[in-house]
């Protein structure tokens, strides 16, 4: 009888998992269950150019390799639980799917703050549907209040300014993007945004939202400042979608704790016929150390899918745990980018673990620059402002683990 792999998650991680299972030689049935109604699509444009022009599934859909033409896509269906002892997952409609192998690739959901306004009055930007709703409200006469000065918040702010809207950004930290990038670079990016007309309210939180007909008309900050508001955007991070894995003895305290083969770890060791892919995978990266981390960067779904598919196919072929540990180390170079106005910011490595020793390696933060993040004197992350031509040089330095 043909084996079946169930992939839970219909985003980039789910798509790449299906493709990589085929590439690794799996010829059985693949069922991908996704809670959105759409086939996999690319999310980075949703907070950037996707908000300015034509946005539809067709403009953001991923190409799918011919090898996954025979995959069954169960869309608009969410998995509510998994049972590792009976090898089944249960869907919200009560149906059960049996699996020989399971891929967990459920990604993250936009985090919500407790606020005195219904969620329908507050935008988030995670899904295509979210972005389509927001896009229709981003008109030149709109007044946006963006809560959260992280990457998504800053990108939405920049895009809204390009469209001519009035933009306020509120964040409890004293500098935008301070946690991922540090004070100096965060402050430089704040200056760019201010130059483009964004008003920041830093060290502040939202105390109250004024509503009329269910839509915001104003926001009151914790210091009493009153801001007009026609569009409220919440961009306060994300939380991993792992509730459906509860009850199987896993460490779900931050995503799913995995070994370097992407197998989830239970008290008795790794689970043989389950792998974890993408934003929810908390795995050790040999490029840095043995510390497992979740990494919500662009290339991680693709890289973890490749690794995880090989693990799973090896398991299905020869279910002998001892023989499974992949020989080569898993050391993907995390990478992402952010477009704000005419600036492209590119990040490699893990700037977040080098936040205690940040140095401008070259250039000028108000123009083009390279910023290095170091741990114990070793370069662990680089953020480029522009300077695309220096991309290879710095990425190689991180890969080599050399001192800059």
């Amino acid at each position, binding site marked *: 009888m043909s084996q079946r792999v169930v992939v839970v998650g219909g985003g980039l991680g789910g798509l*790449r998992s299906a*493709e990589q299972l085929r*590439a690794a030689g799996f010829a059985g049935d693949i069922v991908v269950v996704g809670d959105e109604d759409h086939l996999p699509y*690319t999310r*980075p444009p949703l907070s950037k150019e996707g908000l300015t022009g034509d946005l539809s599934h067709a403009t953001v859909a*991923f*190409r799918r390799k011919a090898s996954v033409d025979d995959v069954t896509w169960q869309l608009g269906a969410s998995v509510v639980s998994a049972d590792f002892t009976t090898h089944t997952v249960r869907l919200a409609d009560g149906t059960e799917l049996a699996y020989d192998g399971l891929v967990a690739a459920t990604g993250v959901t936009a985090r919500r703050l407790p606020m005195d306004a219904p969620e329908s009055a507050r935008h988030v930007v995670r899904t295509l549907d979210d972005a389509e709703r927001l896009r229709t409200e981003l008109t030149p006469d709109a007044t946006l209040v963006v809560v959260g000065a992280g990457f998504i918040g800053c990108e939405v702010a920049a895009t809204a300014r390009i469209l001519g809207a009035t933009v306020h950004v509120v964040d409890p930290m004293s500098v935008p993007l301070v946690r991922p990038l540090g004070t100096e670079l965060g402050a430089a990016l704040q200056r760019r945004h201010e130059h483009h007309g964004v008003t920041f309210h830093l060290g502040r939180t939202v105390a109250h939202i004024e509503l009329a007909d269910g839509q915001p008309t104003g926001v009151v900050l914790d210091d009493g400042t009153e801001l007009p508001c026609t569009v409220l955007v919440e961009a306060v991070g994300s939380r991993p979608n792992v509730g459906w894995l509860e009850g199987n003895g896993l460490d779900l305290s931050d995503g799913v704790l995995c070994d370097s083969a992407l197998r989830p770890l239970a008290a008795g060791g790794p689970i043989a016929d389950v792998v974890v892919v993408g934003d929810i995978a908390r795995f050790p990266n040999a490029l840095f150390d043995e510390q497992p981390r979740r990494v919500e960067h*662009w*290339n991680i779904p*693709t890289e973890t899918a*490749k690794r995880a598919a090989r693990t799973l196919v090896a398991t299905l072929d020869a279910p002998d745990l001892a023989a499974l540990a992949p020989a080569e180390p898993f050391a993907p*170079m995390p*990478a992402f*980018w952010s477009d704000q106005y005419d600036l492209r910011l*590119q990040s490699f490595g893990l700037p977040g673990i080098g936040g205690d020793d940040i140095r401008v390696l070259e250039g000028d933060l108000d123009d083009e620059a390279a910023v290095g993040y170091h741990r114990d004197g070793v370069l662990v992350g680089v953020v480029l402002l522009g*300077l*695309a*031509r220096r*991309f*290879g040089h710095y*990425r190689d330095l991180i890969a080599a683990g050399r001192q800059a």
Partner: protein
Amino acid sequence: MKVVVDMAICQDHGQCCFAAPEVFQLDDAGKLVVLIDSPDESLRDKVEEAADVCPLQAITVEG
């Protein structure tokens, strides 16, 4: 195997250059250059990965 890059949508992110440095390179101006249009079969894995990590899906692998 033939590698085709749609330069009209390429934005020089450079992700491909690290997946398959034998085939893709950024020049001194930060612009993408395809070094080999028809790479050897031994590079297929790398080239496929380059296509996979392209943020713009600008890379097509034919054959």
